[in-house]
């Protein structure tokens, strides 16, 4: 495993540290730029969906992966972003203003949900967010003058500075641009003082407070940033779905987001994207696999739910670091090839530690 050898404080904040990184990311961007002109339309739509899910997953990663605040109700912020944006667009507000407004509303509500996080943490926070997302889903179903209720509401097509971005390929590039900007923004935020404060709070709140970090403020800030980014994903998702119903923003979506973050690997932006790609592709992969499977299995309702659970269980049990940790181990294997020892990453013996009276 390559350990970062820092010679100055600026080393940590640099976006691309090694020459190889530049090559890798440049070629990735190039591939993503040609892809929509080569692949069939169906796959372009799928990749756009993956971009949107990656943004949402990044939003949750800031909160859960970096600050250690568990949220089981992040679909609520996606829903708020999507519905607020749709409502503003139908009022005739331009796209950029409307998107910013919707994200700001999500961030504001994130602030309100973040305030209890000062007092409650861990399991209790998970329950607060879970309850919050259920309440939001019910409110969306009832408040029909704004949200269209259970019958749903259709989303106007996105006009960005007079250009219609509603087409498949333009929308693909819009999502790609937003995703890239989000990654850059979050990288800057997390590589700096704020990010170090977040990680400090995650690893030991008492130690962070002892070092003079304003823990309450940073916890709320993490919620605001997370809600803003997740709301942004909601804005794009509204255009992707083109028709919103409250059922689309239920517990299942929240759980998928948590799955993405955990399976991807907590505490890394790369992991959020790995997780979003894997979980976002899973339904498609299952539907592709179905013709191969015996009909006794493939015809069953609930196969997807079962596989989601099984994948999550396997990761939690055998690779708690997620795909990102697996990827690092694979890289270490390649870089130190003949000298690689399996025990490098062996987990030590662990005992029950109580978090009850900490």
């Amino acid at each position, binding site marked *: 495993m390559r350990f970062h050898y820092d010679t100055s404080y600026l080393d940590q904040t640099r976006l691309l540290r090694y020459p190889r990184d530049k090559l890798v990311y440049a070629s990735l961007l190039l591939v993503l730029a040609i892809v929509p002109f080569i692949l069939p339309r169906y796959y372009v739509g799928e990749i756009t969906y993956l971009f949107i899910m990656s943004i949402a997953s990044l939003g949750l990663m800031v909160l859960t992966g970096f600050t250690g605040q568990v949220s089981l109700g992040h679909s609520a912020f996606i829903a708020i972003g999507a519905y607020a944006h749709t409502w503003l667009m139908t009022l005739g507000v331009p796209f950029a203003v409307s998107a910013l407004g919707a994200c700001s509303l999500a961030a504001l509500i994130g602030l309100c949900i973040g305030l209890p996080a000062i007092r409650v943490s861990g399991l209790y926070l998970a*329950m607060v967010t879970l*309850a919050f997302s259920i309440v939001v889903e*019910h409110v969306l179903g*009832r408040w029909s003058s704004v949200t269209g209720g259970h019958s749903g509401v259709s989303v106007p097509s996105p006009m960005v500075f007079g250009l219609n971005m509603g087409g498949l390929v333009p929308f693909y590039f819009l999502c790609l641009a937003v995703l890239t900007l989000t990654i850059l923004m979050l990288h800057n935020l997390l590589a700096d003082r704020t990010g170090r404060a977040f990680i400090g709070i995650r690893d030991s709140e008492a130690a962070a407070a002892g070092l003079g970090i304003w823990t309450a403020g940073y916890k709320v800030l993490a919620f605001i940033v997370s809600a803003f980014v997740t709301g942004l994903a909601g804005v794009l998702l509204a255009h992707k779905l083109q028709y919103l119903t409250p059922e689309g923003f239920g517990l299942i979506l929240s759980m998928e987001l948590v799955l993405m973050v955990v399976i991807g690997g907590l505490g890394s932006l790369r992991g959020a994207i790995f997780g979003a790609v894997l979980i976002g592709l899973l339904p498609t992969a299952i539907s592709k696999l179905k013709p191969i499977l015996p009909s006794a299995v493939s015809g*069953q309702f609930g196969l997807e*739910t*079962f596989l*989601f659970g099984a994948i999550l269980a396997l990761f*939690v049990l055998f690779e708690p670091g997620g795909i990102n940790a697996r990827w690092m181990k694979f890289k270490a294997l390649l870089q130190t090839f003949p000298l690689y020892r399996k025990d490098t990453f062996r987990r030590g013996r662990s005992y029950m530690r109580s978090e009850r009276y900490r």
Partner: protein
Amino acid sequence: MDGQLAHILQLAMNGAAIGSIYALVALGLVMTYKATEVLNFAHGDLLMASAFIGWGLITVAGMPFWAAILLTVAITAAVGYLLDAYVLRIIVGQPQFAGVMLTIALAYMIRGGVSMAFGPTSRTYPTPWDGQTTRIESIVITDLNLVIVAAALIVTALLFAFLKGTAIGTAVQAASQNHLAAYLCGIKVKTLNSLVWAIAGGIAAVCGLLLAPIALVDIGLWFVVLKALAALVLGGFGSMPGAIIGGLTIGIIEQFAGVYLPDGFKDVMAYLVLIAVLVIWPRGLLAEAHGRRV
């Protein structure tokens, strides 16, 4: 008795019946939480699965009602034991979040497995109390509701008798207070923790079998675990009497919210209570005596 009072009593009685189920579910959650520090999100799915097992045994296998119920409780208890002994044991020592994720994963697997095995349709099974009611003055109570309250009382009484009155029960309490100290006293902590999971599984099965005649045997039955979380938080997390009081209170609040508050509040009342309690008063009604981290 005047009409208004009768109406209120009627509502309270209905609320107490559904609240008893919440209380029992919350009791199962709090037991496993105290023993292994895992908040079991799969509890609701065990409950749902046991309702399906009960349906299968009664209508498909044609077993007598009581035998089917006993067998279902035994099966679910065995599942609970095995889950703790072979699955949750692997993540001992990891942060609480790992336990939450693992039980959510198990919940998904059970839910997926049940819908693969039984399909998405709802069903119902006959009980000896179908359509029977009892009148007390002007209040009409279905016998099913009486049975639910009675069952909740019996299960709770048995549980407290077990915990307070038997040597194993005392050992379970010791193990859930301090694993290491209990282990040094010669208590088999691992076996006892699995036993607690088995008991919680059995209670979940009882809840599932009681809830199914009201709400149909359906995949959606697992949702009751979310209401039970509200009950748990209201009662004071980690307190067993608190879980019972919280469950009953949530059940009654829901009934009254359905009548006296605008349409739609009944469904979200439990969650609003959960949020309000955690924000304003995180200790709940009966908090544990020592300080705890929320």
